[in-house]
């Protein structure tokens, strides 16, 4: 059994989005930020923060995809995942751990803050959309480069 473990140090479920791109549930070409944000809210991906695992499914090759998200816990999350798997002898041939880096998280944080504050709720969403628009091509790139099992096998 092979598994792809994605993690990001953001409360926003970027790792889940990357997982969906890998599973081809999301297009790897440009997608509208509005659509994407709607999809994330509809799928309730944001419930899976604080290190809760999000099982995203299995692709045709039988690779299971899971995602972890946790705010500002990059080093700890990576160490926990890698050492726990090593503890049980699960090596890189069976599992690929990919970190989803989150540049530009400030925009999202601002957007989230604004969407909570009652007088500025309308301003939050556009900021979040801007953030998603900025981050999406990078996610696609990361999925293309890092989530390739064939590379690891060779």
């Amino acid at each position, binding site marked *: 059994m092979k598994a792809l473990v994605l993690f990001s140090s953001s409360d926003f479920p970027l790792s889940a989005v990357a997982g969906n791109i890998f599973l081809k549930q999301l297009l790897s070409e440009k997608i509208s930020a509005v659509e994407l944000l709607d999809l994330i809210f509809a799928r309730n991906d944001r419930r899976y923060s604080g290190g*809760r695992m999000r099982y995203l499914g299995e692709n045709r090759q039988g690779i299971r995809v899971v995602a972890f998200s946790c705010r500002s816990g990059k080093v700890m999350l990576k160490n*926990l995942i890698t050492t726990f798997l090593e503890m049980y002898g699960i090596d890189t041939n069976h599992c690929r751990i990919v970190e989803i880096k989150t540049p530009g998280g400030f925009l999202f944080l601002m957007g989230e803050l604004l969407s909570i504050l009652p007088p500025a709720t309308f301003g939050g969403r556009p900021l979040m959309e801007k953030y998603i628009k900025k981050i999406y091509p990078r996610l696609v790139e990361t999925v293309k480069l890092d989530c390739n099992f064939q590379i690891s096998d060779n």
Partner: protein
Amino acid sequence: MKIIYHCFGGAHSSVTAANIHLGRLPKDRVPRNEELIGQYLFDCHKITDTGKMIFMGRDIFGNDIYVVGRRSRPHLLYNVVSGLSDVFQIDKNSYMLTDVSPCVNLTMKLGGFMSRRLGLITAGRPIVTWGTRRNYKRLLAEVEKVFSRLDQKLPPDKDIQKKFIFRSPEVEYY
């Protein structure tokens, strides 16, 4: 069975508990300062080691003992471990997470912060050692709880000495 002791930094209370479990520290008395400072991996953890499950040794019942520092986020540790167990079909009864942070007193926090975070080892280490001595019995009680949960009994010091006297501590950083 894998027993994972966890606390804030993974440098003092969890290491002491693990060493008590492994019989490297006495159970009938509070250890001296030198014994505590000289114990395996005491006050050695770095910030970059946060979240690393470090192998401490194997007890006489064959249980593997690990320590981990998880800052102030025990839920993160529980969530990650439980999630990975689900995905990789790891038996949840094959490991036991033991939180020893309730055994940490203010002195240990202060000493640990000075030694590990600020790098003031000369000042911080004696303070954290003093704090550990003061709370040693609580740590001992926590280890005894682990043994009772395992339906095993904490062996007397004599038996453990025989088993461990020629066994060097296995240093394995995962």
